[in-house]
């Protein structure tokens, strides 16, 4: 959509690589504005996001139902690529989205479940209750979230699940240094 003046790709060749400067079609979309300009697109977007927030509880409920169904499929059919991938995608979406939807502790528990799925050498060897307890915790956190006095419980539940999962993953990956490094490394901070 953004239109650039027609210009060629500029290529400089070096011994083992090329540096390519393509035409920049986005050149025209940046404009200087007066300091008196009060328009604040970020604030506008935050207000729009707040306007959506009335739907977040329903969205979170549907994410939980997807997680529950993915787990039920594994209990019924065992781990296959399809059932493993669906459980991971369901947990990974909750990890990424639950904080936005107002359930940050569900996000923490979902992250812990994702780490088990990613780093356990054999998923069918993972104690079934370790996975089941993560699912139950996420569902309980979302179900009980409206009760403010449960906030401390939610946090403690997520923290303990993560501790148990990390202990398990460290033990089963003691001879897999690339996984061990990933398990022990701190994650990157979410963007502002």
């Amino acid at each position, binding site marked *: 959509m953004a239109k650039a003046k027609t210009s060629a790709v500029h290529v400089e060749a070096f011994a083992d690589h090329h540096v390519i*400067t393509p035409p920049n079609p986005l050149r025209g*979309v940046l404009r200087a504005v007066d300091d008196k300009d009060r328009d604040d697109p970020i604030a506008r977007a935050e207000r729009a996001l707040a306007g959506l927030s009335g739907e977040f509880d329903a969205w979170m409920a549907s994410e939980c139902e997807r997680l529950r169904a993915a787990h039920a499929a594994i209990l019924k059919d065992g781990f296959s690529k399809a059932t493993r991938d669906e459980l991971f995608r369901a947990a990974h979406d909750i990890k990424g989205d639950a904080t936005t939807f107002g359930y940050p502790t569900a996000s923490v528990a979902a992250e812990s479940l994702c780490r088990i799925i990613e780093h356990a050498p054999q998923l069918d060897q993972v104690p079934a209750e370790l996975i089941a307890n993560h699912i139950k915790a996420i569902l309980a956190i979302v179900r009980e979230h409206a009760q403010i006095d449960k906030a401390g419980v939610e946090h403690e539940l997520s923290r303990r699940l993560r501790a148990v999962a990390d202990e398990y993953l460290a033990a089963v990956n003691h001879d897999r240094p690339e996984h061990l490094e990933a398990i022990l490394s701190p994650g990157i901070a979410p*963007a502002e």
Partner: protein
Amino acid sequence: MFRIDFNKLRFLVCDDNPHMRRILRTLLHSFGAREVYEAEDGATALEMYSHYAPDIVITDWVMPIFDGLELTQMIRQPEAKGNPFAPIIMLTGHSEKRRVTVARDAGVTEFLAKPISAKALYQRVLNVVANPRPFIKTKNYFGPDRRRTSAANAYIGPERRSGGDAETIHQPSLLDKARVAG
């Protein structure tokens, strides 16, 4: 002060989660974007990329069929018919440092870890608009120059890829150019 005319930008959003697509659409429309196309998997996104020629791609990583990393690799084909240079913002729940490196090595322009915020998304878009990077093509990489900090640009030691002499090319950012012009 600089502002992006979002109404001049065409976005392609690729995420298998309908809730996240709704959030992204809401944010982009609120910024002023009019053209926001949506795909729910990498294969559909690739078709839409060819058809709509978006200015900026925002993609999730974990998706069925093929994922955001594979989508990036398919877009970053120097011999492809389509535009291999479009900025790609990887918006993902992955939060491990090694994932940032993997995404960067696939040709991703910006990495944005969830949870999403209006400010972070705006800043990533601003960065790809105001600070376009040249592309590097080597035997096994094609994508934005991965050395983008001022410290990296000042590097004059042996080139990591070959062990030979380093050759650095300084690219003034569009923001800098606009400041000079203004």
